[in-house]
């Protein structure tokens, strides 16, 4: 027998709603019972003074407080596991809201839940009334002639009551979610603050992961392809040096291959060095930059001014970004500002700011929004909360200034 999908979905939803309601009932009625006990004790003291009562009354107060805080976690579980609503962890913060929910609003909701479950049970009982009657001994049926009419009415009523249960249960669950979110949820600003915290953390993780990946690629290339290429160039060099009696055509081919191999090494070296130079990890930014400046195709003046009394080195992620900025900037100068005759790289550390300035006397007109290289540069600077400024009037000079925060 197959159940039609709509009915099956409705049944699944009803089961979930009823489970949520039943779990809510136990959690909401606990404080209600507590209140009831306290009220009874208080009334008892008023009408029939008993020397023990104040003591017992004093003991109930901590119970109320425990309930006010302790019921939050079970409620979070109920919302999360039974209807997929995530409430924040509150622990001891926001005591007022927790107490309001568990001790005042909760019991009211508990009553609604009680009514709903009572309706469900009554509906079930009433709609099965004919079965009950059939189970009782026959003499009763003989004594109450005409019972079937009444029983039929009751059955119809029961079925009608049952028919209203899914809608009521759905409504109650929606109401509970509204109330729960409003009272136990977080305010918008709290939520945003938390989100910012999470994002900051995950972004730092992403930046570090990308750095680690670059290191790994650098290492793999160094241990693999680069050694092979050097070995290839070396063997071609040996061939050139030893095979002197070859015909000139063959010599030309070997010469060309030798040159190609050396160019490939050079190209790969520059590429890998742009990724993440090993010296950056070992000796830091200052040492790594001179390699960049020396390989630039135009004269570069490099000034690195890092106070020697820094408590510790700049964070690796920030150093990597600073290095990347200089590397990209010098590449851009070489690529787009061929008329430039000189460039200047200045790196200074001032308090908690690392400032990197690259200037060249090229023709200017660089557009940070257009060039993909500059865009990537700005993105990487932003990934560590840095600021990126560029001035490049047509006619030059071009100046790029990057400030990276390095918290002490």
């Amino acid at each position, binding site marked *: 027998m197959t159940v039609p999908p709509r009915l099956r979905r409705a049944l699944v939803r009803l089961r979930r709603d009823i489970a949520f309601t039943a779990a809510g009932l136990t959690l909401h009625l606990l404080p209600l019972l507590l209140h009831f006990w306290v009220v009874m004790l208080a009334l008892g003291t008023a009408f029939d003074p008993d020397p023990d009562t104040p003591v017992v009354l004093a003991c109930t107060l901590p119970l109320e407080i425990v309930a006010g805080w302790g019921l939050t976690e079970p409620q979070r579980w109920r919302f999360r596991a039974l209807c997929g609503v995530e409430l924040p962890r509150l622990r001891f913060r926001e005591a007022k809201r927790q107490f309001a929910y568990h001790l005042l609003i909760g019991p009211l909701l508990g009553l609604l839940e009680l009514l709903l479950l009572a309706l469900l049970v009554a509906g079930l009982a009433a709609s099965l009334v004919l079965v009950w009657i059939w189970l009782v001994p026959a003499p009763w049926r003989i004594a109450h002639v005409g019972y079937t009419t009444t029983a039929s009415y009751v059955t119809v009523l029961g079925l009608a009551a049952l028919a209203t249960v899914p809608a009521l249960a759905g409504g109650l669950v929606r109401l509970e979610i509204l109330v729960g979110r409003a009272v136990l949820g977080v305010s918008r600003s709290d939520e945003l603050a938390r989100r910012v915290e999470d994002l900051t953390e995950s972004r730092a993780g992403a930046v570090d992961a990308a750095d680690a990946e670059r290191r790994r690629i650098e290492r793999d290339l160094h241990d693999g392809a680069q*050694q092979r290429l*050097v*070995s290839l160039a*070396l063997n071609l060099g*040996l061939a050139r040096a030893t095979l002197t009696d070859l015909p000139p055509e063959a010599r030309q081919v070997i010469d060309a291959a*030798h040159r190609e191999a050396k160019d490939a090494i050079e190209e790969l070296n520059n590429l890998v060095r742009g990724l993440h130079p090993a010296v950056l990890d070992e000796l830091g930014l200052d*040492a790594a930059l001179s390699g960049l400046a020396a*390989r630039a195709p135009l004269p570069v003046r490099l000034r690195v001014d890092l106070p020697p009394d820094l408590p510790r080195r700049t964070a690796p992620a920030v150093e990597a970004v600073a290095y990347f900025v200089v590397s990209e900037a010098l590449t851009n100068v070489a690529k787009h500002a061929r008329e430039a005759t000189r460039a200047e790289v200045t790196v200074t550390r001032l308090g908690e700011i690392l400032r990197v300035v690259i200037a060249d006397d090229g023709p200017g007109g660089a557009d940070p929004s257009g060039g993909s290289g500059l865009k990537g540069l700005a993105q990487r600077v932003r990934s560590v909360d840095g600021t990126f400024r560029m001035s490049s009037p047509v006619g030059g000079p071009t100046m790029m200034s990057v400030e990276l925060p390095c918290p002490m």
Partner: protein
Amino acid sequence: MIAEDSVLLRVGLVKVVEMAGFEVVAEAGDAQELLAVVEEHRPDLAVVDVRMPPGFTDEGVRAALSIRRGHPATKVLILSQYVEERYAADLLATNTSGVGYLLKQRVADVEEFIEALRRVAAGGTALDPQVVAQLLVRRASDPVERLTAREREVLALMAEGRSNAGIAAQLVVSESAVAKHINNILAKLDLPKADADHRRVLAVLHFLGVGG
């Protein structure tokens, strides 16, 4: 003696070194082995790769420094995928004689590499042009600015550790022209005149901020 962790390259290096007329007494795959072998064989010259197991950072440089301190008779030629002036400064700080620091790819230019090998073995210096370029970047101010382009070329070649004849061959000029350039440079930089090649290299390196 040769220390290089890439077996492929080690084989090639042995060939080149033997072609230069040296005898390879031992090979090593990491820095520890290198030190042990130097202790045992006392070679005249060790050719060392910078990045070796276990850490793959600057083991070669550190091993070279301890060799130069412990066995002054053993000259060291360091090869590296990338040259860093900071390591050059470390290497030259104690003793500029018998030290070489070249880019790995230079071994492909067999004749030039052999020339550098011989220079280091004879107690001279061989610095990669890249290192010298980096040193000049650091000193891109002051008196160096006053040199002509040709003089700067000669200064760089001097810093690499080349002799007058070597510089003349490289620039395709006569040795007397080189000598004239050198005198001008020494005068402009306020460096003492020295007859011996090596003393002159020392002065130049000292001027560039490395070497004792």
